[in-house]
């Protein structure tokens, strides 16, 4: 069964196909959601909303591009919607000034576990995390981010810079710990 057939069955509300679709893609999609949520629980909430939207709109998938890519876009859009919806609860945080950014050894950074990097991303303030994800990973421009999130372009740029510094600090500390850890 190819992707289009699977999507077609899902659009006909075939329960088995819906389960199969979930089983095939949920791990990858949850990985995306975890980047946008500040906790695994929030990530699962985003995934649940995203999967509902996927099942609802899968009939519009025409086969242009991969099904996985289409599903990723849906989930990212849900994450953006979720951020906008809750934006009144969020605020564009001002972290304490990060004066000293630890040095990251590129080679050691390569050895950082993906889970540790994910944790560092999740620890970013909500606004930083959203801007960083959209710019650095999804490839949005600052103009697009500003339109999506309803902020100014300069705010988007500032948030990105601060997000980077925050991440470098977090990962630098992890890196230092890793380097100091005794070799067993």
């Amino acid at each position, binding site marked *: 069964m190819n992707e289009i057939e699977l999507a077609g069955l899902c659009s006909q509300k075939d*329960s088995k196909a819906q389960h199969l679709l979930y089983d095939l893609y949920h791990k990858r999609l949850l990985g*995306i959601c975890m980047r946008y949520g500040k906790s695994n629980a929030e990530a*699962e909430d985003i995934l*649940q909303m995203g999967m*509902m939207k996927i099942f609802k709109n899968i009939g519009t998938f025409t086969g242009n591009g991969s099904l996985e890519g289409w599903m990723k876009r849906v989930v990212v859009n849900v994450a953006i919607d979720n951020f906008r919806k809750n934006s009144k609860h969020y605020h564009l945080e001002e972290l304490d000034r990060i004066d000293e950014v630890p040095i990251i050894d590129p080679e050691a950074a390569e050895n950082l576990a993906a889970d540790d*990097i994910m944790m560092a991303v999740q620890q970013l303030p909500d606004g930083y995390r959203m801007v960083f994800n959209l710019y650095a990973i999804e490839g949005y421009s600052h103009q697009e981010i500003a339109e999506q999130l309803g902020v100014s372009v300069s705010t988007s740029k500032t948030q990105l810079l601060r997000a980077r510094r925050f991440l470098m600090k977090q990962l630098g500390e992890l890196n230092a710990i890793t380097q100091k850890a005794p070799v067993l």
Partner: protein
Amino acid sequence: MKEDPNFIDELVKKRLDNFEKPASNNLRRKLFWLVFLFNFKWLFALGTLAGMAGIAAFLYLGETDHLNILPASDSSIVVEQQMVSTENLIDTNPTQNELTSVHRTTGEVVTNIAPEVKVIAGNNKKDPHQRVDTELLSDDNQLTIKAVEIVETEQGSSISEISNRISIPSFSNPLETDPKGNTSLRDVNAPKYGDPWFSVTIYAGPAYSNVFVSGISSEYVDQRKTYESNRPGWSVGTDFKFHLDRWVLNTGFNYSVYNQKRDYSYSYQEYLPDDSYYHYDSTWIWVHETPTTIIPVLIGVDSTWVEVYADHTVDNRGTNQVRYFEIPFMVGYVFNRNLFSLELNAGASVGILNYAQISVPSLSNYNEIGETKQINQTMLNVMANATFYYHLNQQVSLMVSPYYKQSLQSIFSSNYPVNQRYGTMGVHFGVNILF
């Protein structure tokens, strides 16, 4: 420090772009429950609508049933009273009166008075505009009746005068008391069967399903009819009934099991053309070549095509079974006669497949029996029943309900070339509880 600002972007993207993590089972369960609700949202919307209508009817009719407020005439005061024995006495002896309050408003008088209670309305010096609540106590101090409102239409009328002008209707259905002699206010206000109200029926019973098979070819259908027969199933469920006068709106939950006996046990021969052959039969005669020599002479060859068959035995027995979780929507009409009622209902039900195990002949070779998975996930039925009730008391009734249910769809999915429907006769036995 790595100076390139994109370094951190690239690092995160590289490490997290294909990050995977399995979701919790809880998410899966929640998600597919939501998907289920989404897939059948119209059904739930309809059910919710019916439920809300029922609750609205319940509240509206319940309220009017308890507070039958009748307008007062010029100089008379009417006391509306439910199920009160004509033996009730209104005693004006002020020494026994436990009048604590009277609520004066305008134009109407309402009070609930229990049977076998001597109600004494004594205090005749009440200010006509004074608001007081009245609580009348029974002699045995077990039953407390609260008079809700007493209103005078004429200023200066005393409570005793009011009492004298109270008209107490006679009811043929007096309040029942339990073996201990206790009586409750709830019993007083309980409606008779057939009054607008809400009731629940819990039932179960056997069913017998006829199978109607069509499609693909008459040979296939004959094969099915020959080796399959009916086998009793059963169903169990709960009905929620909203009584509107004599009309009843029904919905609820039903779990139905449809069975069909499968007994493919026979032998057949399969023609093997490759193994078949010609049998040659020659005819010879003996001829005297010379007077002393006889030689055989072939005068004819007869050939016959010999067909070779392989013997096969088919042995596939069991029960084909589908189970549906069904939600009925029916409208009924009630006829009452003494302790019995007859309720005629008709409507539809929507089924959601819960289980299926169907083995049928293969569409390409009718002698091969195999399980098919192409089962319709939903089922629409029309149904009708005649429900007989025997009322044990004002709240509990025994019921027996013969019914017929006809599926409008095939149990197979639409792309399966065989159409199979059920016509089910059954009977439900149960209990109806009136609230």
